[in-house]
């Protein structure tokens, strides 16, 4: 087991190293930020001074080593635009994104699994068919369009909810959160629904497929034959069996929702990390782009590593397969 963990850990380290090179080279190959950060009215001397200041006159590999050297000391560089450490910039906006993502993914999972199990349990009922129809919509309709429609109906036409921005915040442990205030909650509803819709559809489909397959297995047939009540079957067998794939997807989705929040945050002007990265792409603020991508890559590698470990714990075959 220990050998397996070490092997997977080393793999994760190698992946991170490769990712850092790809991300760094990729981002630093983009355009020439200098023409964007300096004003169009700047003279040649000003331009050259700015290039030196930002370290853009060094060859790419030198810039990479400087970057990696700093990274290993926990320093991801300074924003070209704000001249503050990038981590500070991202850290300041992370709570807003986390808040939105957690609320979305949790509500999508709870609701999605319930609906999905029902749809799988009674596949022929009209309710199930409606649920599945809705899930097709949630799956295929582009999220940004749903966002627009939510704004059009609930903010513009009905005027029930704000169209964008983050509401009033409260400080808890030195971090500003908006969900504990009424104003904050009213701001979070539309973006959260927008972000949750795709995950909801996915959870419904997953839970339904799982349920349908399990209901056809011999275990359930025998249980039924043995006269065990349907409720017990649902609770004891079904939920237990489908919970593993659902938890896996939950973990994976947490990461991908974090990334997908880019779209939702842009539509609803939500002041999170996703909005920051879109803005940074617009002005080619390279350190922010690199730091964000490295952090996301780190997140994904970590999630995958943890999932691998959990699977290894549950299923010994994985362990053997990997070491042999």
């Amino acid at each position: 087991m220990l050998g397996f963990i070490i092997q997977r850990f080393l793999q994760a380290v190698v992946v991170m190293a490769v990712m850092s090179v790809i991300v760094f080279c990729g981002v630093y190959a983009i355009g020439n930020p200098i023409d964007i950060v300096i004003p169009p009215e700047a003279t040649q001397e000003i331009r050259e001074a700015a290039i030196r200041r930002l370290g853009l006159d060094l060859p790419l590999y030198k810039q990479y080593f400087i970057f990696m050297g700093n990274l290993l000391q926990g320093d991801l560089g300074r924003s070209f635009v704000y001249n503050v450490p990038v981590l500070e910039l991202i850290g300041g906006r992370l709570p807003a994104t986390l808040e939105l993502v957690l609320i979305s993914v949790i509500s999508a999972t709870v609701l999605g699994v319930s609906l999905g199990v029902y749809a799988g349990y009674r596949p022929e009922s009209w309710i199930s068919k409606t649920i599945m129809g809705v899930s097709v919509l949630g799956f295929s309709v582009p999220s940004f369009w749903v966002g627009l429609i939510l704004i059009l109906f609930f903010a513009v036409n009905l005027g029930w909810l704000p169209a964008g921005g983050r509401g009033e915040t409260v400080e808890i442990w030195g971090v500003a959160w908006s969900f504990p205030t009424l104003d904050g909650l009213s701001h979070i509803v539309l973006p959260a629904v927008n972000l949750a819709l795709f995950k909801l559809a996915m959870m419904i489909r997953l839970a339904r497929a799982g349920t349908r397959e399990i209901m056809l297995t011999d275990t359930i047939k025998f249980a039924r034959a043995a006269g065990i009540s349907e409720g017990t079957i649902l609770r004891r067998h079904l939920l237990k069996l489908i919970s593993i794939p659902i938890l896996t997807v939950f973990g994976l989705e947490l990461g991908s929702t974090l990334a997908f929040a880019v779209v939702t945050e842009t539509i609803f002007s939500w002041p999170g990390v996703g909005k920051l990265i879109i803005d940074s792409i617009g002005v080619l603020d390279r350190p922010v782009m690199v730091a964000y991508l490295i952090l996301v890559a780190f997140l994904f590698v970590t999630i995958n590593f943890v999932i691998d470990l959990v699977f290894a714990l549950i299923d010994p075959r994985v362990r053997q397969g990997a070491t042999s």
Partner: protein
Amino acid sequence: MMKYTKFLAPLAVTIGLTAAAAASAQTLTMGVRGGPESMDPHFSALGSHAEAAKHIFDTLVWSGTDLQIEPGLATSWKPVDEDTWEFKLREGVKFHDGSDFDAEDVKFSIERIPVVTGPTTTTIYVRRVAGVDIIDPHTIHIHTDGQAATLPNDFIRLFIVSSEAAADYSTPETAAEGFNSGKAAIGTGPYKYVSWEPKGDLVLERNDDYWRGKGAWEKVIRKEIPNDSSRLAALKAGQVDVINYVSSVDYLALERDSSVDAIKGDSVYVMNLQLDQREKTPLVRAKDGSELAENPLRDLKVRQAIDHAIDRETMVDIVLEGLGKPANQMMPPGFFGSSEDIPMPEYNPAKAKELLAEAGYADGFEVDLYCTSDRLPGDGAICQGLGQMLTQVGIDTNVNAVSKTVYFPAQSRLEYSMFMNGWGTLTGEASYTLGGLAHSNNPEVKLGAFNRIAYKNDDVDRLLQTGATMMDEDERRATYEEAMEKVMADKAYISLVQLQTVWGAKAGSVEFTPRFDEDTLAFFIKPAN
């Protein structure tokens, strides 16, 4: 909102929520499109940066509502010889930490700029400064590299920081931390710094000892809301009291909305169409794709035809939905050096076709038009409209409205033949605009740096060179007016529209006069009645 609040009310009680507190009359909350990039006023020359800095810091020279220059921390100034200006400093002014303002702070601020400036460089404010001499605590001599008639204009965004408070925070590494933490963000301005987060809120409290008098608001919150729709929504929802830059898209609807006041002001930005004057130009061709014998844009008749093809009224009424004015020169009327004798060009497509035929282009030609699409309100739409108008007189126009991040680098590499962007006369006078755009590009005399169309008129060059050294104001004004008339008659630069800006405010809540530089300054916003 009603239904929703009802639905959530029990929830609010159970988790003990704090309801959104109604903004008290003593607090002004402003929703602004752009914020500062740092609390260090010397970090960036961006308009929104300077706008935020003006709340905390003062400048030697103040630029008023119409960009006329007025005393600020300096009470008077005069040239003492060819290359020296003397500034008399205001006495009895105190920094927010109680220390006195004097000549030492001015010298410190000027010398600090080249060290701490960011990429959007603030060195443009001190580009003519060769040295600073302190004569006494309230008199200072500024030496310039040669005659600098417009030095006081350069100083309108030269912010004065405290030489004591900022002493330890004047290197590129320490400046942001020192100022953002508030330790060095000590100015003489109407408001004191409380807190700021990049892209977030800037919170300020009143400086009761301000030398201009006490401001009307005890507390000012400046919220950065870049999205036009969200900013407007925040105003309508009562989250902010005032917003800047209402987009032309929302302007008409806002006019009809009785709960909101729309305050319209002129902007310094004029949209100019620019026509490449080089003998070979890359993006103009015959309609069948073959090369033309010469660049048609060098022919005055062609340029006049283009001018006559443009319907400025429609552009203002339809494209900008009323938020602009037809323009006949590169600066707003009334600015130092703009001429009242320039006629408004006539929209006359028949005449345009006639002129094209006379120039030997009866069948027209084809051109690629480039514009910014995301820099100023309506730029992309104006571009599309321009394309339609030119195509209708026979100049087949391929419209390319591109991001400013693509446009400006390509423009400075001289890759375009016909292009349009806005130019803001931020200093309020012509040497800045004509000197940059209309003089032939000549680094030796530091003129024509933004002339990207190889425009050269010897008369104009001569006028601009003499104008730059004239110390007599009336003579200088006449010189620049003459230069402006000549440039506009040549039609290599064709001015289209002057933009206007709209502020939104809760109906009947505040009073203020729109400023030409579009700044939204809390000190000059007063509560109504």
